[in-house]
């Protein structure tokens, strides 16, 4: 197979694997009845995904990025606006870079 064909085969397989992960969760859940226990699991898992992404990023980032993240969380708590929170986080990070 030519290098070009191999590359496209790889991209196609990547797309297939990723699409498989996108549809698998809902398909699996057709097999379960949503009891209050399953509901508690799903709700906790939802917030856990977000917290895990943020915690993982914080552990791998510096003071600048983490201050920005903290400010975004604080603005969200105060205003309930995710756009406002993201804008505030960006402003902190940009200002930090310009002033440093």
């Amino acid at each position, binding site marked *: 197979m030519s290098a070009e064909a191999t590359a496209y085969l790889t991209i196609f397989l990547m797309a297939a694997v990723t699409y498989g992960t996108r549809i698998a969760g809902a398909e*699996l859940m057709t097999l379960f009845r949503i009891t209050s226990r399953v509901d*508690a699991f*799903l709700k906790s898992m939802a917030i856990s995904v*977000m917290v*895990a992404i943020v915690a*993982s990023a914080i552990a791998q980032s510096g003071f600048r990025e983490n201050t920005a993240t903290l400010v975004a969380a604080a603005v969200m708590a105060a205003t309930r606006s995710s756009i406002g929170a993201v804008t505030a986080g960006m402003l902190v990070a940009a*200002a930090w870079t310009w002033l440093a």
Partner: protein
Amino acid sequence: MLNSETANVRLTMAGVVRGVKSLGPISLFVIPFGIAFGAAAIERGVTPDQSIVMSLTVFSAAAQFAALDFWNGPLPAISLLLTVLAVGTRHILMGATLAPWLNRLSRPKRLLALSVLSDANFADSYDAFRRDERDVGRLVGGGLALCICWIIGSTIGVIAGASLGNLGRFGIDVVMVSFFAAIAVGQWEGLSDVLPSVVAAAVAVLGLIFLPPGWNIVLAALAGGIAGVLWHER
């Protein structure tokens, strides 16, 4: 989940428009990530056409950046595909979380809607479904906005990436983590979220040391889910 909370779920164009409006502004911030991907892909020897086709069909920043690490070896490598699977596993969890609403749709509609499932439109539509949204178009519209911006960014990156320099000086690098932090705060319901969150954060951070990339988030989400069940049944 009460039946009334998931009754009358539908997929309409009006919902798609709401999704585009809700995630449009955040989606614009995906463009710089796309530029970074396009530039990195060219640097790794992926051709411009291949890079753009990859963004169009895979549509996953995590999977695509991870794949670049393998690109100079023999293709298609099993290790590459396993890594793509690992970073994609959180989609399975997000799909399961949205299942109470999604599974009210016919299977063809569901399979179509889920083709654009991503972190940001998951967060947005889960939040909306928890309130009063009943239209899966919300997920689709957000996903389309993200996907279009991802492709625009990738294309710019492929063409001009090397000449744009470091985008971090505009604070763009913190957009996604700020967004997820904001959504986590927005979803916070009180005491019942404390244990899952602490467990998830601890597992995610420890997992960075012991696990291959991506698996720490999956393990943290499962551990947080189990913690939630234990709290629920204490």
